[in-house]
């Protein structure tokens, strides 16, 4: 009996000390963590509407609709930044899509994904031309724009008629799938379509 009390007491003391240490540190870094959590979405919204200066959030959890009405500095409506979610191959992909009220996608940005590295995860890959040897040879190369090439295909297109194809696109409404990751590619397209349609209906635009 005496031993049992000693065992329990030891564990309780260890746990309490650990809890105190963690709470103390958490209070110090809490602000930073919350900023980072928000920054992901905030930066994405700034990316899809570059002229944004004011936004109004709508978060309807019941119907799973989450979007921001975005305005420029003259208070004119730029469009809607919509958070779209869709199950991909091994994770739920989350995208922020900027859509004008005519249904044209301005830009999109994937804000969360944990797809297979080398396949689906390439949705975030940027074309690069910088070699590791350049650090030794000191060779300068022209800067490429840091926009993932898969996502760039959606920019400036009308969302309604888009389809995913497995070859080089020859029509305007075609999106080339990522090699070996058709499921992830289709998940992005379907996620966008579903998310945008919901918001369009709610805003009475269609």
């Amino acid at each position, binding site marked *: 009996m005496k031993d049992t009390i000693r065992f329990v007491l030891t564990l309780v003391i260890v746990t309490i000390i650990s809890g105190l240490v963690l709470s103390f540190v958490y209070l110090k870094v809490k602000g930073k963590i919350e900023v980072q959590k928000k920054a992901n979405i905030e930066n994405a919204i700034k990316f899809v509407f570059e002229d944004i200066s004011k936004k109004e959030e709508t978060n309807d959890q019941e119907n799973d609709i989450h979007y921001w009405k975005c305005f420029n500095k003259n208070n004119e409506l730029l469009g809607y930044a919509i958070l779209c979610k869709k199950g991909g191959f091994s994770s739920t992909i989350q995208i922020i899509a900027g859509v004008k009220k005519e249904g044209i996608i301005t830009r999109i940005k994937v804000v969360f994904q944990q797809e297979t590295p*080398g396949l689906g995860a390439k949705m975030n890959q940027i074309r690069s031309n910088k070699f590791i040897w350049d650090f030794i040879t000191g060779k300068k190369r022209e800067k490429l724009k840091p926009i993932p090439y898969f996502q760039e295909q959606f920019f400036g297109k009308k969302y309604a008629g888009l389809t995913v194809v497995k070859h080089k696109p020859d029509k305007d409404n075609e999106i080339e799938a990522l090699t070996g990751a058709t499921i992830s590619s289709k998940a992005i397209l379907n996620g966008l379509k579903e998310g945008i349609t919901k918001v369009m209906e709610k805003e009475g635009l269609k």
Partner: protein
Amino acid sequence: MNILKVFKDGILDENPTFKLVLGMCPTLAVTTSATNAIGMGLATTFVLIMSNVIISLIKDLIPSKVRIPAYIVVIATFVTLVQFVMAGFLPALNKSLGIFIPLIVVNCIIMGRAEAFAGKHNVILSFFDGLGMGIGFTLALTLIGGIREILGSNKLFGYLFFPHNYKPMLFFVLSPGGFFTMAILLAFFNWLSMKKKEA
């Protein structure tokens, strides 16, 4: 036992990855790129050093029957601290390592060192054991990550490696490639130590 030997053993003779073959899950899962591998290695090193130090300090206060749960709490505390730092300051790395950061808790290297070393030795030796093992683990991960990234996506630390006309072998970034790379490296290190014994 001197400090230098303990430190060197962790990196070479008792390398946690290639000699003890511990902590295989993170070793295979996060080594799709060298950057991820280093991030994981350093996070594990931090937890390893801190838990070794604390456990060697409190080992006499803990009754031996409840030492395992007590050690787990200590390890989990430092893992949570790592999670805070990653979430607050390194969001990109945090995203790509995903659930493998909290899973450092069940990395057998850490529990193994707590049991086999820190529970029996003093603070200074335990510190250097943690440091050596951590560096050994980080180097091993970086080697695997580097090989897989170069062969599988023709990059190293995110920069191109071979000229453009090299077609990367996707196999190496995918999960079978992880097993395969590890198998070949393990066989290579077996061969090295056999050679050494013969000589």
